């Protein structure tokens, strides 16, 4: 019986309790979770849908039905369209970078070596800083005049003069992506480490008996067995990175000139800075539609492979 993360109870048919009690029991057990989620998530969702098709004053007072005006205004807005494209770059950049960096990390941390426990703890550290606070610290580190990044790089002769990192999107956005990757690696490498741990040693022994070289082992044995975990990591990361707000907001607020806006920061600006709740709701729904589509399409494509 191997670890299967998406299979329902493989123990069906072995349960022996009374039928009626059993039919009721699961529903009672999941009832609290249903109540909590439907209330806290369902009602606000309904509100957002309502706002998106209403004419809402900047004070949140609903003034009447507006049909799809909010949507058409938003979709015609060039800032929205740029943000949409940039969100794609952001998500692919951060998730891609995270996965690519996490696989070697997991591979290294799987094998025993001196100080492995320490290494594991240190790698986990970025996870322990609240994202908003991490963004503040990085912002300070990248401060052009007083930040340690410029100071250290200049000391080592990598830079000749201070770089104004946040002044231009060409430097600010990659820095933001890099930070996104750094903070995502702990969680992802944990998942991959778990996945690697589920591969029994016998498999590797068999492979080395058959004379497989390290790279072959990796490509033909490790990677395929790791695939379900990589898929999970991708899905979870995409959902969280797509919605990731603090890094970009703290460092550049989506500027200068909206050149680092992604959908979620633009959403925040519309809701709370520019006072346009109706349009913000429309952007929310657009984002939800994108995430839904991605998740269902991705799972449909990938899940059969896990069987």
């Amino acid at each position, binding site marked *: 019986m191997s670890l299967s993360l998406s299979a*329902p109870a493989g123990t069906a048919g072995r349960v022996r309790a009374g039928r009626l009690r059993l039919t009721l029991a699961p529903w009672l057990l999941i009832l609290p979770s249903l109540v909590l989620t439907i209330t806290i998530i369902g009602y606000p969702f309904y509100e957002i849908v309502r706002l998106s098709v209403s004419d809402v004053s900047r004070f949140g007072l609903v003034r009447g039905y507006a049909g799809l005006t909010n949507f058409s205004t938003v979709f015609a807005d060039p800032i929205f369209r740029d943000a949409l494209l940039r969100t794609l770059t952001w998500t692919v950049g951060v998730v891609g970078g995270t996965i690519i960096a996490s696989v070697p990390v997991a591979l290294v941390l799987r094998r025993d070596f001196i100080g492995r426990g320490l290494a594991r703890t240190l790698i986990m550290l970025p996870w322990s800083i609240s994202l908003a606070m991490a963004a*503040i610290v990085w912002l300070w580190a990248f401060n052009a005049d007083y930040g340690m990044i410029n100071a250290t790089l200049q000391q080592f002769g990598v830079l000749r003069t201070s770089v104004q990192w946040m002044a231009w999107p060409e430097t600010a956005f990659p820095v933001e992506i890099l930070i996104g990757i750094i903070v995502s690696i702990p969680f992802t490498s944990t998942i991959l480490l778990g996945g690697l741990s589920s591969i029994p040693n016998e498999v590797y022994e068999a492979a080395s008996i058959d004379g497989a070289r390290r790279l072959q082992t990796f490509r033909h044995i490790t990677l395929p067995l790791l695939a379900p975990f990589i898929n999970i990591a991708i899905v979870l990361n995409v959902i969280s990175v797509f919605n990731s707000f603090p890094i970009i907001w703290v460092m550049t607020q989506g500027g200068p000139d909206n050149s680092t806006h992604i959908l979620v920061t633009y959403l925040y600006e519309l809701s709370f800075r520019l006072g346009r709740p109706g349009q913000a709701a429309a952007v929310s729904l657009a984002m939800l539609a994108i*995430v839904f589509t991605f998740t269902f399409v991705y799972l449909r494509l990938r899940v059969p492979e896990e069987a």
Partner: protein
Amino acid sequence: MIPRGTITRRIVRRTAISWLVLSPLLVLALLPFAVMLSTALKPLPEVTAFPPRWLPSRLAWQNFVDMWATVDFGTGLANSLFISLTATLLTILVSVPAGYAVSRLPFRGVGAYRQFLLVTKMLSPILLVLGLFRMAASIHIGDGTLVDTRIIVVVIYAAFNIAFAVWMLAAYFATIPIELEEAAWIDGANRLQSVVRIFLPLSLPAIAVTGIVTFVGSWNEFVVALTMLRDPSRLTLPLKVVNLVAGRYTVEWNQVMAATLLATLPVAVVFAALQRYLVQGLTLGAVK
């Protein structure tokens, strides 16, 4: 761990390579902490000295004291702890039964239930924050509403964490062999007894892992707290720190860094202490 006396050349080589491969990442992981420490210990004039230096001329421990008073750090810490712990507790209380049901008890709606949870996972709080606020503002309690209460934040965090918690717990629960409980039934125990005496102790690592993830997520969370919490006596640490920086006429970075450092320390300690369970919980998957 490696038993003494067997440190072979192979292991030494593997150690060297491992640390080498990890080193760029370790530098990046530790950089924020180094920056925090360096700036937090600088006297204010040195913070904006040009060119900047890593080492302060003297260790200005006073910054921490000043910061604690200015920011009312103690209150922020208490709020963060209360909210994160309570949210984690609530999540666990609600998700363990659900995880048990999903992994042990076949029922017709299980597929739909899992789909439903997946959908809630995709509905991130920030997308719904406007709706969440309006919902909280429409429920009147005492002479205010649920806005600016810590309990609404707790409930919101729990609700959004359920999907992941149930998913993770169900996955681990499925790996706990039913045979163990069945053996108890044969010995005459009823279902509840077997769950409490046999199942729960085995599920503790999984619960611990889920608990850690939920706790850290709640501690980290920013946007919902920002929208809901207003009164300084109720702000969590991330809010207090961001307040020091956002929209201020002057920013005292040494205090900001001191605050960030102290705010991160509890979680880092929890992490280091429970890191063993984290790995244990994950490697549980390998147990047959």
